């Protein structure tokens, strides 16, 4: 399967071409290059997937792990070396498909959305760079290659968030995103260092005796790696960068901050899953707890946000929490016995990518139409933009877990896994699922129904988005409708064996009921022009509401830590110390020399008698020195 190299090379080339020669090109040409290349990449990935799965299972009933390419890139020591290569196994192939699909959709969509933007070529160059790095991340043959592309992903995300580099918020957001994830990556790096030292390799398949001898170091390494994953996947408390990242162009949010990059952490955990299960199950459970808490926290915040992209951002965080929980609740590698969560998490990753991208792209259309992110500027848009309305509704149903949309199946599997793990976890997650349904429909009604901002719409009539934007919506909507029926377990499961998904009827029914109830509540509260209940609630729970609206002040805490603590209490004193102590000490030496030279000036009085006195004195002193010592 040597052609897979194209999947990495082509986007890189298009990045170089657009980056170097972009200035000379017309927007259309640049966009076309980027899109065509991505189209080829998408086709290649689909063919790879087909090729790979069609090749069938090996003797042990699992899909073989292929490495078409693997070459030493940077030798570290005799045993350790960083390789560059392509690794194909079920999850990486699945990710290839997801990334190339969403990316292609975003490329097409951006034609319409970014029309006439300054720096159109730069935009497409960065998109290609991002796609390349993301693809490189998923096909990494070793943890270090993963880290390498991980960093590249971070940088391209930084560049894309800061695409509108004249906007203050955009600059701040991009900086925040990069530094927060970088901080998390520190954990990742140290984890890799531990792993490399004790496992004696960077590959994902170390010798077992090495691991056995490593003892508690492997869980430590895995835990540190998870910190890195938590950073990229916006797990609490490292989630703060994601909502701000919405400052970037909306298609970018769809691609990076909904579908692909933010699930890198999930992918990382899935990639290390065998080690987690084998050597650090307790760490895996912590992953579950973190995921659960994040899911709850994000859902509760999402319930009160008024900026639609922020709502979507928090729902993303929440959904990633679901995936983490799915992976975390695994207790063994056997899907029939506690290993179900793995498959569920991956499945949810897949479906979520599709419908969340759909949601964001839809939001993009809406913002494009009303030139604002605030719900206050919307309401009653259903009559202006039907296509967007329908597709958005589908996505909302999917994320709320209403059959037959894809979200239902994947979320159901996760819930099943949770109940298998512990009833508490099960009920908690079901409740969060309900919240999800609630805030998604609050959003839906707020945009398409609810109280309409008449005068604004009168001043400037919202219009349906152009074809280049609606086509991706429709495509993704179709996928969202159909994806649920993919026999996902056939392809991916915790032990690689084939696993047929069967719906656990009582979990399914409960979750659906809960979702329906939540939707009903949302409808009751937000459908109509006047929304007494909502306003009443907001009034009664004023404090809670404000706190939630301000995301429980986590950002302010960070603000405090970075500016007040790091800058004011560390850097400034250090700089002061450097200038006024270390440096002054050197000047002090010079000063001493000068001062002493001034001091002894009088010795040279110009009086010859004093000279000879000193002369004789010197002689006598020397005599004494010699005679006494």
């Amino acid at each position: 399967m040597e052609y897979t190299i194209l999947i990495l090379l082509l986007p890189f080339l298009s990045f170089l071409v657009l980056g170097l020669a972009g200035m000379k090109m017309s927007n259309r040409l640049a966009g076309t290059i980027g899109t065509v290349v991505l189209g080829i990449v998408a086709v290649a990935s689909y063919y790879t997937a087909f090729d790979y799965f069609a090749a069938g299972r090996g003797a042990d009933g699992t899909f073989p792990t292929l490495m078409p390419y693997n070459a030493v890139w940077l030798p570290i020591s005799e045993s350790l070396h960083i390789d560059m290569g392509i690794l194909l196994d079920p999850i990486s192939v699945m990710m290839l498909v997801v990334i190339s699909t969403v990316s292609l959709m975003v490329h097409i969509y951006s034609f319409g959305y970014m029309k006439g933007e300054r720096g159109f070529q730069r935009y497409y160059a960065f998109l290609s760079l991002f796609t390349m790095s993301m693809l490189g991340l998923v096909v990494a043959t070793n943890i270090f290659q993963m880290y390498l592309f991980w960093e590249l992903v971070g940088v391209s995300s930084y560049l894309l968030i800061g695409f509108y580099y004249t906007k203050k918020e955009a600059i701040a957001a991009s900086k925040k995103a990069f530094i927060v994830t970088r901080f998390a990556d520190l954990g990742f790096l140290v984890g890799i260092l531990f792993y490399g030292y004790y496992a004696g390799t960077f590959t994902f398949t170390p010798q077992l005796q090495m691991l056995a001898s490593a003892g508690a170091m492997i869980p430590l390494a895995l835990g540190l790696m998870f910190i890195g994953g938590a950073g990229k996947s916006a797990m609490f408390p490292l989630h703060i960068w994601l909502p701000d990242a919405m400052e970037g162009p909306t298609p970018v949010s769809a691609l990076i901050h909904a579908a692909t990059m933010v699930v890198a952490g999930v992918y990382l955990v899935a990639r290390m899953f065998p080690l987690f299960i084998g050597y650090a199950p307790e760490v895996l459970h912590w992953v579950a707890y973190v995921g659960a808490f994040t899911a709850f926290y994000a859902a509760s915040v999402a319930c009160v946000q008024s900026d639609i992209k922020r709502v979507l951002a928090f729902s993303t965080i929440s959904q990633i929490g679901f995936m983490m929980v799915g992976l975390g609740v695994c207790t063994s590698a056997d899907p029939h016995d506690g290993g179900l969560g793995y498959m569920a998490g991956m499945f949810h990753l897949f479906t979520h990518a599709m419908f969340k991208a759909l949601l964001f792209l839809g939001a993009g259309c809406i913002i494009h139409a009303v030139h604002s992110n605030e719900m206050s500027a919307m309401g009653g848009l259903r009559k202006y933009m039907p296509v967007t309305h329908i597709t958005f509704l589908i996505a909302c149903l999917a994320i709320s877990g209403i059959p037959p949309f894809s979200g239902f199946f994947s979320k159901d599997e996760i819930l099943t896994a949770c109940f298998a793990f512990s009833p508490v976890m099960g009920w908690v997650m079901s409740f969060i699922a309900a919240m999800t349904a609630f805030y998604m429909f609050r959003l839906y009604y707020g945009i398409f129904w609810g109280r309409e901002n008449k005068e604004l719409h009168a001043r400037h009539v919202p219009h349906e988005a152009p074809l280049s934007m609606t086509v991706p919506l429709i495509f993704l909507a179709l996928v969202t409708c159909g994806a649920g029926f993919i026999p996902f377990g056939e392809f991916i499961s915790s032990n690689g064996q084939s696993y047929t998904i069967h719906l656990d009827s009582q979990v399914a029914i409960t979750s659906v009921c809960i979702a329906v109830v939540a939707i009903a509540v949302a409808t009751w509260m937000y459908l109509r022009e006047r929304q007494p209940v909502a306003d009443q609630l907001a009034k009664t729970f004023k404090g809670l509401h404000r706190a939630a609206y301000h995301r429980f002040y986590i950002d302010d805490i960070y603000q405090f830590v970075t500016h007040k603590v790091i800058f004011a209490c560390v850097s400034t004193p250090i700089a002061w110390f450097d200038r006024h102590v270390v440096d002054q000490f050197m000047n002090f030496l010079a000063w001493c020399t000068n001062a002493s030279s001034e001091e002894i000036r009088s010795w040279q009085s110009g009086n010859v008698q004093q000279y000879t006195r000193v002369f004789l004195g010197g002689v006598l002193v020397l005599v004494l020195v010699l005679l006494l010592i």
Partner: protein
Amino acid sequence: MIQMEYYLVVSTIMMFAGIYGFFTRRNLLAILISVELILNSVDINFAVFNRFLFPGQLEGFFFALFAIGVSAAETAVAIAIIINIYRNIRNIQVKNMNELNG
């Protein structure tokens, strides 16, 4: 018979008298005279050492003679220079001779 020590005492006294004079006189000529004291005390030393310790030879005496001659030459030059100073600043006080300092 006077022993050597007496001579040495005398010469030493001369020596330090000369040094004292050198340190305290205000007039260049006086200083010059003190220097002569120093040099002559040395001459006495040589003579005495030669006479009492190494009577067989004349090195000390000759050294003394040469020293006298040389010191005469030195004094001559010194006086010439002092006269030159007098020409320039109309006096030969040491205290006026400290323009060069620091």
